[in-house]
């Protein structure tokens, strides 16, 4: 454990900009957005809560060229890797799902893999909670415990810093000149903040009635033919925001185009709420009704992933609650599944 002052963090990021595109969270009125770090950026705060955009965005790009003509090389490999500052525990939990989906099968996604290997994650404890946060119901604590290179715990004047990977250790070693020794007060402060945030999240969980992980076991399958789906889907406008904003949704679509005489194959995020998602040639659709597609989203998250990877594909970040124009609340849906209606 080390101590790093605010100014020294800037110094560290300054240094990192030579080998990384560094992104930091900045409040812009509608939430925290990741913006490129520059030395004249006046204010950023690695703490607070999760950013508006999911962390996956730096690892599985929303839109990227994956093949050109008949080249076997991976396109776009000349880009600098990314250093994300202020990633939160819920987003880091998302890697459990993404890694399984994109690295653990018969094939590896070389683009995602490269980003996982090369990008640098400087995560941070949450210093508060939104009223949509329910991470702890999904078994995630509001401070990172794994999947980071370096974690920051905000304390008076700066941060307590610890490494979570070989890459993080090496970076801290190389930065030893700017690191200080933490004292007892700082450790106590970190503990207090962590407890306070946990209490906020716990209060949210109790108020919203979101069930715990144990009671969710088998719930989707048990309630497969329930009225809940059609009822919840009544207001859905099929925008797909819930998917794109989710730190675990990884489904994508390939499409081809011609660009300056070259064939280009692009990969873009897809959304299982959209009507064409499962449509097959000729127009047959296994999920023609919106409620079937809403149900499919829950099936994938709370039935498929527990079965194949022993993990719920929900980290309790609450983004889909904030992002849904129809105000469909995943906590309520889960509550209804468990209470049979």
């Amino acid at each position: 454990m080390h101590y790093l002052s605010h100014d020294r963090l800037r110094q560290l990021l300054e240094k990192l900009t030579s080998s990384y595109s560094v992104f930091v969270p900045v409040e812009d009125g509608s939430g925290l957005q990741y913006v490129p770090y520059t030395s004249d950026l006046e204010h950023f705060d690695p703490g607070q809560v999760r950013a508006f955009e999911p962390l996956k965005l730096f690892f599985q790009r929303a839109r990227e060229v994956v093949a050109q003509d008949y080249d076997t090389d991976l396109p776009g490999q000349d880009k600098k890797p990314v250093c994300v500052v202020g990633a939160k525990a819920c987003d880091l939990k998302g890697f459990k799902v993404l890694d399984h989906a994109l690295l653990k099968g018969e094939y590896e996604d070389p683009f995602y893999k490269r980003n996982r290997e090369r990008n640098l994650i400087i995560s941070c404890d949450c210093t508060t909670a939104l009223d949509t946060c329910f991470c702890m119901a999904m078994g995630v604590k509001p401070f990172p415990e794994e999947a980071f290179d370096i974690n920051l715990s905000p304390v008076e004047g700066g941060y307590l810093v610890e490494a979570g990977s070989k890459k993080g250790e090496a970076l801290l070693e190389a930065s030893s000149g700017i690191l200080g020794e933490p004292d007892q007060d700082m450790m106590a402060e970190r503990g207090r903040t962590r407890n306070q945030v946990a209490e906020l999240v716990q209060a949210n969980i109790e108020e919203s009635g979101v069930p715990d992980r144990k009671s969710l076991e088998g719930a989707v399958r048990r309630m497969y033919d329930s009225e809940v789906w059609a009822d919840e889907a009544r207001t859905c406008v099929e925008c797909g925001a819930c998917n794109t904003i989710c730190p675990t949704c990884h489904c994508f679509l390939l499409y081809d185009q011609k660009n300056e005489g070259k064939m280009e194959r692009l990969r873009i995020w897809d959304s299982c709420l959209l009507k064409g998602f499962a449509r097959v040639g000729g127009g047959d659709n296994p999920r023609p009704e919106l409620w079937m597609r809403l149900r499919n989203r829950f099936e994938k998250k709370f039935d498929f992933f527990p079965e194949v990877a022993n993990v719920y594909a929900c980290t309790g970040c609450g983004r889909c609650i904030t992002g849904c124009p129809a105000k469909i609340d995943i906590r309520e849906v889960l509550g209804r599944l468990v209470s049979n209606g």
Partner: protein
Amino acid sequence: MGNTTNPYSMVRSRVLKVVKETPTIYTIRLKPDREVPFDPGQFIQLTVPGVGEAPFTPSSHYRKPETLDVTVARVGKVTDRIHQLSPGDEVGIRGPYGNNYPLEDFRDREVLVVGGGVGFAPMRAVMYGLFDIVSSLAKLLYRGGCRNPSELVYREEMSRWFDRDDLNIVLTVDEGDETWRGPTGVVTTILEDLSLDFESAVAIVCGPPIMMKFSTLKLLEMGFSDSNIFLSMEKNMSCAIGQCGHCRIGPYYCCTDGPVFRYSQIKQYPNIWD
């Protein structure tokens, strides 16, 4: 990173020949720059440059990978453009993907192949595989059906299959015409009077979902074991490498865990036929 293989890159291929099997089904013969060896049941992704790609099961002989046939029904965007291809045109292939039929396990057993509609295409590759080991099979039966005689593919070749004494073959059409001398009725009607050792016999079924559903139910009723019914499932596919999430069936991805499934594997999951 030149040595990291790109799962999305394709093998350049030339169109050698286009056979118009029926007004809506064409067989395209392709010559890939580099051979794409496959086993019966596996599929490839075929790209029309700049238009898009779609999955198809090669319908040619798996032991002759220098060229590759795909038999394609015209149903939409990509298949429309495939039907416009002419000899000399360039297309892309990636694959093969998915699992294959465990043909070796079928030795000493009675094998029934049921194909419907465009399901004839993948079944041709399977039949080539089965013909190669036919002397070690206890029996080989083929039951095929399509809507009407004009939708029948591989006519010439099929007529030679009728001459084989190692194959028991019956074809039916939903609606006959003056040229049709075989039975009429949906394919399940020609499954009625089979004499097989149902408990140990193996069935391979491929065709439109509705045909697969009713054939499977019929076979079960006849006494086939649900683990001896092999189905080739069609789902929406994009990546074909088990990542894009489109082709899920229960806990499986059709592209990597399938497309060939034993009925026993998938029967417990809802809406598999939809």
